Every structure is written in C-alpha cells, then in structure tokens.
C-alpha cells in the first residue's frame, strides 16, 4: 500500500477540513480526486505530503506513520499545490536547477525534465514572472520530474494548460507511473481526468468515497 488513511481528521484554521477520511491507494495507481470546491481535496493532498498534522485517525504514507513523524515522508513525495513553488525573478532553467541542486539531480536530469515538459531553449531563459499561467505550470511540473518522487500529489495540474499542454501532462503522468511512481491528482476536468485515472475517489464534506 502506498497510502492508507483510516478515519483521518485534519484541522485547518479550527475547521475540520478532513472529517474522517478513509481510503487506500495501491502502488502504480493514478488516482483522481473529484469533488466540489472546499470539499477537502487540497487538504487531503497536503496531509499526504506530511505538511498538516493529523488530528485524529491514522495515516500511513510510503511506510511512514504521519501520526508519529509526518516529516519523514516529505523527501519521498512531490507536491504541486495551487501555488507553483517557483521564484518569479529567476528564469525557468534557474528555477529547475535550484531544486535539482537541493536534491542532487544531474544536469542531464534537468535537461530531460525540461524536454518532457516542452520547455524550449527560448522559454528556459525567460523569467518565470514573464510566463503565461500554463507555462508556469509546466515549469513547476518539471521540478517535480527532476525530484523523482515516489508519490506525486497534484492539485489541479490541468488548470491553466492549453489542450496540447494537457496532453503532454497526461503523457508525463503516465510515463511517471510506468517508471514506478504513484499519482494522486485533483481535477475538475472530469472527462479528461477519468480517461487518465485508473481509479477515482470522490471527496465531499471532508469524507472520501469510492466512485
């Protein structure tokens, strides 16, 4: 099991964003999280990444018990939230190579990641501040590819991408899965997402149900 949540409550700003979520995710799955805004999808992804304390219940991700030490899981997961986690004043190449230096990836890895995400030479020398929303998203995904996470947690990865970019993204996620990663992503683009996903979960009112 990659992730196994049992009756997990996560409190955020005095509000139980997750109110007893139970689900399991097996290795190699591409799991779609669907549900209305404010249902708890973002909280679920952040909790999986070990960023939020588990108030009640038990959560085990990649063999780490989040109730005991939620920091241990962090190096093994890649999280792409609503924010891209980029530095707008740096160029695309500088952003990606910053993250690669932090985790010891090679220049070759950076090159490959940029190619996969279609970040051409011209784009890679552009400051992130001058990119379109979709281009920024691609840059952020490239940093995740460089990190070679075992579990990808993506919050609305399709948002802001054009249809070509979405195809590229789907291809990237599939090849990441083929390379041994597990993907969990939230999306409103139900048709496209269901095509991509091997399984989908519905999150409503802080509770997770199988769809």
């Amino acid at each position, binding site marked *: 099991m990659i992730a196994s949540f049992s009756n997990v409550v996560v409190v955020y700003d005095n509000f139980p964003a997750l109110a007893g979520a139970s689900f399991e995710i097996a290795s190699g799955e591409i799991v779609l999280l669907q549900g209305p805004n404010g249902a708890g999808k973002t909280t679920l992804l952040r909790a999986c990444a070990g960023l939020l304390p588990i108030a009640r219940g038990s959560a085990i991700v990649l063999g780490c018990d989040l109730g005991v030490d939620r920091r241990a899981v962090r190096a093994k997961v890649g999280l792409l939230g609503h924010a891209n*986690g980029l530095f707008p004043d740096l160029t695309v190449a500088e952003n990606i190579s910053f993250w690669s230096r932090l985790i010891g990836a090679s220049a070759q890895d950076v090159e490959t990641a940029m190619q996969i995400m279609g970040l051409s030479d011209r784009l890679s020398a552009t400051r992130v501040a001058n990119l379109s929303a979709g281009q920024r998203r691609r840059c952020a995904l490239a940093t995740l590819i460089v990190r070679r996470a075992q579990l990808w947690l993506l919050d609305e990865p399709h948002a802001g991408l054009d249809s070509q970019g979405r195809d590229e993204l789907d291809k990237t996620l599939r090849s990441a899965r083929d390379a041994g990663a597990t993907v969990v992503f939230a999306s409103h683009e139900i048709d496209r997402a269901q095509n991509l996903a091997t399984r989908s979960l519905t999150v409503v009112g802080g509770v997770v149900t199988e769809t």
Partner: protein
Amino acid sequence: MKNSLDTGVTKGKVVTAVLSKDLKIEMRSRVVTNQVLPFAGLVMVMFAFALDNDDVLQRVAGGLVWLATLFSLFIIVQRSFAIDTQDGALDSLRVAGIDLSAVFFGKAIALALKLIALEIVLICGAVLLYRVDLTASGLVLLVTCVLCATSGLAFVGILYGGLTAGAKGRETLLPLLLLPVVAPVLIAATRATEAAFGSGGAQTSEGWAWIGLLTVFTAVFGVSGSLAFGSLIDE
C-alpha cells in the same frame, strides 16, 4: 537531515544553492539597492534635520549608522521570506525534505552580504555627512565590528523571520520579537563604531571589548539558529 544524506547532497551544497538563489533574486529585483538603501539614507538625513547640530551629529554618527541598519534589517528580513512565500516555494522547501539548518545558513549569509553592502554605504555617508575622521587603526576596528555585528544580526534576523514567515500580523510581530534581541548588537556595535570614529574623544582600543561581546552574540545565535530554525518554520 538524514534525507540530505539519502540524496547524497552535502550540507555545503544546499547552503550555496540557497545563498546563490537569494542573491540572484536580489540582483534581478534590486529591492535592497533601489528601496532599502534610499530608505536608510533618508533615515540618516532625517536625523540630521532632527538633531540640527554638527557637534551632536559627529558625536552620535556611529549610533545613527546602526539604528538605520536595524530599521533596514526588518525590511530586508521580510523581503527575504517574501520571495519564498509569494508562490509557495517555502512549502516546496519543506516537502523537499532537505536539511533546514542548511537553508538557515544559506539565507543568513545572503542577508549578511546585503546588510554589509548597505552598511558600507551608510558608513561612507556618515563619514561625509557628519564629518567623521577615520584613522587606520580605527578602520581595522570598524571592519571587524561590521563583520561581527552583521553576522549576528543576520542570524537572529533569519531565525525570527522564519518564525513569523507567513503568519498573520508578521509586519508588527517581527520587530516586537527582534528589537529586544538585537539590543546588545545595537549597543556594542555603536560603541565600537564610536571608538573607531573617535567620537567624543573615545580611544580606538576601547572598542575591542565590544567586539568580544559581538562575537559571543554571533556564536550563540548561529548555533541556536541552526538548531531551532527547522522547528520554527515547519508547519
């Protein structure tokens, strides 16, 4: 910590990566040179208006340099964490599972370099504006003082800046937490600078006792910062 071993990245590499990232962003955005520096210069000029007496100004020049530096410290620290929080990069840093004490040193060194650049301009300004005479032995004392005091300020600045990063009301909380802590630096650096300037007939030799205090301060907060920073910025 163990994670940086897992990936084979040494602490030094993380420090330089964070340091060069912060400096590169400053080179691009020019916040320190275009905004903080004029602000600090203005503070010095305003003091000249308020005190309106050449003798007094000459006497307090050292203190004014350090007071202007302190005010600038708050702004630069806020800015230093704003670049990490504006697009959620701080979250990514947390998730990356890297050694946060290395992030502490990287950010502190970057902050110290920005502060030193600022102080050089301020001190030159004080020498010109307030008509201070500087001897060779005074210059040696001054350089030592700037190095010790600035590294101490950088350590506490990043430590408490990390604590307040992303918190509500950080603009007011940061000075409230920082001001009492940096009081020893203000006192010691001011006295040492006055000794270097020879203000009020102070001897250069009087300044070296204060350098000792600054060194202790820097060591204390360098060590405690590298230990505590991780648990302060962590969610």
